[in-house]
């Protein structure tokens, strides 16, 4: 008998709870992709899928700083909005590495967490390709601070809710080719890529533009990530005597090529060029003196005094790479869009409709960021792309082109 009473009481209680819940919430989620409901006292969670280990760690550390400082700034500026439901903003970090596998794992972990509202990441385009698809399938918007491969925002291959604040490499490749042809006076160029979408597409754009300008791409070679002996491939390239050797790859292999190029006969006069994947003190450390005089293209918006001060105060070092401001802007864009579409309930619960959030991001217009004025196109390119060519002088990246 006792048992029946117990069940009856349980049912009554359950009904009461359900009724109470209905009574309390005035919000009904009508978004086709559903809503994220953040109960009072709970944090609003955004993911950060960045390179947090391995040889390219500095890229991730750099971006993560941008994300965390943006969160601090946003929290400080929106105290009242957050205070209603005692919310805070939490950054969930995942290591996306600099590979397709890493990007896939990080994205799947983040997609499995239904309370994640949006994701900042990834650093490498190779990780961005699978991650953008997985997160878009889970209706989680993803904004990358440093994916630059053109295919990620190409009309046919872009993911539904993927955006980026980094430049598209169509811009960077063009800048590299123009610098090589017009400023260095180069007429022949050789390239090396590592099979990653970033490197492969970037060197292709550079080669195409260089050819249009009237130069000639004499060799387009490739190596593997993890290769150490670059002398054979450099020997092959040396046979073509290029004026410029352009290898837009990453720190470890880039440093090996830089060092070994000096030792291969036939490349003594060749000018070495790389790109933003190698802008890091780790590259200078790994390549040593051989890096002196090398040219590297990268985003123009790197130094912002106010931001650098905050960064140094928080982490005790200068931002180690080139995309911290892009990460800051990406995070601000995401948080602003969240605030725009979010509905705050009477009890302080925040409801964030997913499709509306994605649409809000794509309709970003004239967003004043630290990297410039951002306007997103329908494929997700939001950057205000300005490219600098830096020269390594005394172990420092010094911008040399375009001249101010």
């Amino acid at each position, binding site marked *: 008998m006792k048992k029946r009473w117990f069940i009856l009481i349980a049912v009554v209680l359950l009904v009461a709870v359900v009724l109470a819940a209905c009574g309390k919430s005035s919000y009904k989620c009508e978004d086709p992709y559903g809503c994220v409901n953040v109960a009072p006292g709970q944090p609003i969670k955004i993911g950060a899928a960045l390179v947090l280990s391995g040889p390219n*760690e500095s890229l991730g550390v750099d971006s993560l700083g941008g994300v965390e400082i943006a969160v601090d700034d946003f929290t400080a500026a929106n105290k009242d909005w957050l205070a209603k439901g005692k919310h805070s903003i939490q950054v969930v970090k995942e290591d996306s590495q600099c590979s397709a596998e890493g990007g896939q794992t990080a994205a799947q972990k983040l997609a499995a967490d239904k309370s994640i509202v949006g994701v900042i990441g990834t650093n490498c385009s190779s990780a961005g390709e699978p991650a953008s698809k997985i997160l878009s399938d889970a209706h989680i918007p993803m904004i990358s601070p440093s994916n630059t491969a053109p295919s990620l925002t190409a009309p046919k291959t872009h993911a539904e809710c993927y955006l980026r604040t980094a430049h598209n490499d169509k811009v960077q490749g063009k800048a590299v080719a123009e610098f090589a042809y017009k400023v260095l006076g180069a007429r022949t160029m050789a390239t090396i890529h590592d099979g990653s979408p970033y490197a492969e597409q970037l060197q292709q754009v550079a080669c195409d533009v260089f050819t249009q300008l009237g130069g000639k791409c004499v060799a*387009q070679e490739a190596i593997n990530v*993890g290769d150490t002996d670059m*002398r054979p491939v450099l020997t092959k390239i040396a046979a073509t005597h290029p004026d410029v050797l352009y290898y837009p790859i990453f720190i470890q292999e880039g440093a090996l090529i830089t060092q070994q190029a000096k030792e291969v006969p036939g490349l003594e006069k060749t000018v070495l060029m790389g790109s933003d994947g190698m802008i890091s003190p780790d590259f200078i*450390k790994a390549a040593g003196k051989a890096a002196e005089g090398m040219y590297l293209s990268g985003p123009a918006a790197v130094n912002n005094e106010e931001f650098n001060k905050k960064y140094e105060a928080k982490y005790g070092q200068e931002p180690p790479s080139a995309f911290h401001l892009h990460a800051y802007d990406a995070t601000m864009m995401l948080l602003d869009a969240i605030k725009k579409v979010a509905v705050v309930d009477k009890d302080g619960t925040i409801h964030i409709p997913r499709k509306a959030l994605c649409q809000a991001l794509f309709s970003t217009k004239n967003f004043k960021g630290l990297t410039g004025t951002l306007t997103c196109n329908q494929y997700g390119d939001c950057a205000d792309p300005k490219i600098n060519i830096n020269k390594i002088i005394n172990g420092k990246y010094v911008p040399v082109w375009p001249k101010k």
Partner: protein
Amino acid sequence: MSEKIKYFLERLSWVDIMVWLFGLAILVIAVIGVIGSIHNAYYTKEQWMDFVVFGISQGGVYALIALGYTLVYGILFMINFAHGDIFMAGAFTGYFLAAKLNQYGIYNSHPIISLLLIMLLAMVTSVVVALITERVAYRPLRKAPRLVPLITAIGASFTIEYTFRGLYGSGVEAYPDMKIFVGKTSVFGLRILKVHLLVIILSILLMAGLYAYVQYTKAGKAMRAVAEDKDVASLMGVDVDRVIVNTFILGAALAGIAGVLYALIFKQVHFFMGFIPGIKAFTAAVVGGIGNVPGAMLGGFILGIFEALGPGLILEGLGIPASYQLKDVIAFTLLVLVLIFRPTGLMGERLSEEKV
């Protein structure tokens, strides 16, 4: 004789024939590639010689690591997959001494002494890591089925990698340039980087030393005895545990030196650096015939030369663009071919039949 052939034909299966045809097809493609490349005449003679020199020096490092695989396999019949990381442990630790010596200027004022010190430190580190691995991961499993130590070896490999990541961080460090080894020199009309020359000479000396040790000393004799039959050897008064420990010490010391040589050629060290050389050296050991000391040396050099020459000589002749990306394909195709035509490796033991 005819009976032998008859017996051979009876045992021949379709699978064997298919596999041989597959191997032959690869060989034919390779020959077409070589002819194509020679016809192209893209490279000069000096460049071909450069490739060979690159290959020999890379091969020397492979061979030194491969010896560690082969020694342990010869005695325990297990593949010590943590060996690549033992190599990393030496190279990475040596870096810190190199950086300190460089800071005080000793690195370039007394290069030979510094090099010896760095090698000593690398050897000691590698040996310590190897001994701990042997004691913790392998010795308790001496009587377990052969698959079990293989799995623990993989576990040990990860443990070592991430321990060193915790100790030294996950960044890339670079050995400073040693001035006396910068630049080229010429030997028998071959232009060769001084670093390569050093690596080739040292690796050959070390291998000769190891061979002499195994063949002509009492300890070497004990080693060979344990390799042949552990139980009988122990009945003859050989302390099997000690011989095994000796073997690990030898292999690890060679790996430590190989680590420093590798770092002299490629400069960069990081916690994951042992993985690929480890796999390649294992391939070299199998190509040469695992368990066989001269085989590992031969395998290392052959693999190194094939890797350096293969893309230019074979793949380009076939018109494959960006051929250097496929360097590893050459290495592992070589492995497949050796396994098809000589399953016990180039100098593999022909003992199996006699043993049976």
